[in-house]
């Protein structure tokens, strides 16, 4: 660890860093240095010569980091000047630390002066953008070491500023899977990694990993500087806040002792995710999902049909062909586990039994604080927030599902990319678009309640084929229960606008033409939707006409057949009479002839 905190800078005062700050800065520095490849940086060549052995931070990444602190440009310039980087031409450890301290000072509102860094300051805050985070943190799979975990905790803590002491308890039980997640300020990353990597890592090495980071963390915490109880507690609290924010595994301790099968335990966040997915298929959490709906949904996981069949067998405890919420959670969990490489159990594990699930998580609509925290960075609108969350979650899940199986369809990819990039914009677009689209698409999709939300373009092509099937099935306007099955037609990234949809539906249904089976079509524009529906209407009308004609013909056929048989009978009788008469004639004739 670069412990040259105090000495190196020529003009600056001896730098006193608290333990937490020390840790934080060193990680940030390591990260910047690591990102740069550890080499020297832009600057006068003599900089490299001057400090041949020292690690320097790349100016580019440092600049990014500073910009992430969201201070105005002049302030950043001042800071760079003051910390001495301009003078020496590079960002050595001392300069970096001074700069960070100055940033913290500036963020706290203090003037950017050398003197201001002498006092106790909170850690500087960096709002990472998505791309920066990606560049910085690279492939999450590699970040296995404890060192890598800590920067996340730092930034996580910085971003959310949560220090919960009570979580200290939980952290002893919860595994350190959360640190593997990508930076928290970008929810997609957060979700993606836990699901794909964290769980597999988690399952395989829950207990072993846990003590390791703690030990690793200890050496990193330099005992120098003023070490009070608070800074000492900071590292655990880092993790605590991290864990809290990610809300990974929070089972009470006694539960884990009763049920040692960790892979089959559903965590809080998983539970939330499953519940949201359930709601996307069926808005009423106390009701159930029909078999066909669930089948289509789970088929998207790209597991083989026999496996899915077996998973269903395991999870549908009452064998009624429908999944209630706990059954659905169990099934989903089994699928997730299977995707992560776990063999399916012989019987339903006790932690996945419906009774257990219902008892353990009585409130299906538990508000996870995690998502509350995200709302800060999301648009204030409730529904877009849900959409974002769900889209991100579901996108991550979509990313999960194809990635392990390595057969990402182009549709999926396209959808993921589009959804990710245009996330916020589509949210805003989708809402007004829905209004305009509803009249056009609804007529095709389904009569009232269920109408498929015209998802932003890429997903629609996928939905179109599925949508066609369902309009036929779900004709009845009054059946709200059907709304979910059809809603589920859209790929994982569906839900949240459902609630919106339903409000609009009543108005639209009245004006709606109840004709079924109009494909949504590719482009999500009302104009193209209408010609489609018009064409479809005609063809469906024709179909109906043909069907009625067929029916009539059949009836006519039956009538005629009956008539035919009767006439045949009469003909036979007449024939017989004729024969009889001829006979009589024959008998009589010889007499007359003679």
């Amino acid at each position, binding site marked *: 660890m670069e412990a040259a905190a105090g000495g190196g800078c020529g003009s600056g005062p001896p730098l006193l860093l608290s333990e937490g700050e020390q840790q934080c800065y060193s990680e940030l520095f390591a990260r910047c240095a690591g990102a740069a490849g550890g080499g020297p940086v832009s600057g006068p060549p003599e900089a490299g010569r001057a400090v041949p052995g020292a690690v320097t931070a790349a100016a580019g990444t440092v600049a990014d980091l500073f910009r992430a602190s969201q201070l105005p440009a002049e302030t950043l310039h001042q800071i760079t000047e003051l910390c001495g980087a301009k003078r020496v031409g590079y960002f050595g450890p001392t300069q970096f630390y001074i700069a960070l301290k100055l940033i913290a000072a500036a963020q706290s509102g203090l003037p950017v002066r050398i003197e201001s860094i002498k006092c106790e300051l909170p850690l500087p805050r960096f709002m990472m953008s998505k791309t920066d985070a990606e560049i910085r943190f690279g492939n999450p799979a590699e970040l296995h070491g404890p060192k890598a975990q800590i920067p996340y905790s730092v930034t996580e803590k910085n971003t959310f500023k949560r220090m919960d002491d009570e979580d200290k308890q939980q952290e002893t039980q919860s595994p350190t899977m959360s640190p593997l997640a990508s930076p928290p300020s970008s929810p997609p990353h957060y979700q993606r990694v836990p699901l794909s990597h964290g769980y597999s890592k988690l399952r395989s090495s829950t207990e072993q990993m846990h003590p390791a980071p703690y030990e690793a963390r200890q050496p990193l915490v330099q005992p120098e500087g003023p070490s009070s109880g608070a800074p000492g507690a900071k590292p655990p609290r880092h993790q605590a806040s991290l864990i809290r924010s990610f809300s990974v595994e929070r089972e009470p301790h006694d539960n884990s002792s009763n049920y040692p099968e960790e892979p089959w335990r559903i965590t809080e966040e998983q539970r939330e995710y499953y519940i949201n997915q359930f709601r996307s298929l069926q808005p009423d959490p106390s009701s159930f999902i029909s*078999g066909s709906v*669930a089948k289509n949904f*789970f088929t998207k996981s790209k597991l083989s049909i026999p496996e*899915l069949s*077996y998973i*269903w067998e395991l999870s*549908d405890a009452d*064998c009624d062909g429908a999944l209630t919420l706990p059954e659905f959670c169990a099934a989903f969990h089994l699928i997730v586990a299977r995707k992560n490489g776990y063999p399916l159990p012989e019987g339903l594990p006790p932690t996945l039994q419906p009774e257990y699930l219902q008892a353990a998580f009585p409130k299906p609509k538990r508000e996870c604080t995690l998502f509350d925290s995200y709302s800060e960075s999301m648009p204030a609108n409730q529904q877009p927030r849900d959409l974002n969350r769900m889209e991100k979650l579901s996108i991550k899940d979509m990313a999960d599902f194809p990635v392990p199986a390595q057969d990402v369809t182009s549709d999926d990819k396209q959808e993921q990319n589009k959804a990710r990039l245009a996330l916020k914009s589509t949210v805003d677009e989708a809402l007004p678009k829905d209004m305009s689209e509803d009249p056009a698409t609804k007529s095709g999709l389904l009569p009232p309640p269920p109408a498929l939300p015209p998802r932003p373009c890429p997903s629609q092509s996928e939905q179109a084929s599925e949508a066609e099937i369902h309009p036929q099935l779900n004709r009845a306007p009054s059946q709200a229960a059907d709304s979910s099955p059809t809603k589920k037609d859209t790929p994982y990234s569906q839900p949240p606008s459902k609630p919106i949809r339903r409000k609009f539906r009543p108005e639209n249904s009245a004006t709606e033409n109840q004709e079924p089976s109009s494909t949504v079509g590719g482009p999500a524009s009302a104009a193209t939707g209408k010609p489609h529906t018009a064409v479809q209407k005609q063809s469906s009308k024709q179909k109906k006409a043909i069907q009625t004609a067929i029916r009539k013909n059949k009836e006519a056929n039956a009538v005629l057949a009956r008539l035919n048989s009767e006439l045949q009978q009469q003909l036979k009788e007449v024939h017989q009479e004729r024969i009889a008469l001829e006979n009589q004639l024959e008998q009589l004739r010889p007499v007359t002839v003679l």
Partner: protein
Amino acid sequence: MAVCVAVIAKENYPLYIRSSPTENELKFHYMVHTSLDVVDEKISAMGKALVDQRELYLGLLYPTEDHKVYGYVTNSKVKFVMVVDSSNTALRDNEIRSMFRKLHSSYTDVMCNPFYNPGDRIQSRAFDSMVTSMMVQVC
């Protein structure tokens, strides 16, 4: 108690057939196949008018030297055929009926699985285990 259990689809192809491994399986397959004729005969003998009252349990289809074959038909023309050992005289009609009922309920459970397409071979482990429990005692 059963030596061989078979589930035949409406089109008379087997959805599931399993026999206890002591004897030549082919023989049992053949017996089941021939019993289908008897089943069809019994079904058609009921007549169209009696369709509603038709019993699902067909009873003893035909006895052979050392086996007896029992039949059961569902309303969707799926047939269950069971071959039992003749030496097992303790088996009464009611027991056979109850066994068929169990088979039928397991079959409906398999049907409830949305991933099961009617007409596929039955690969449900629950169904397997249920059949095993019925057959285990023989060996």
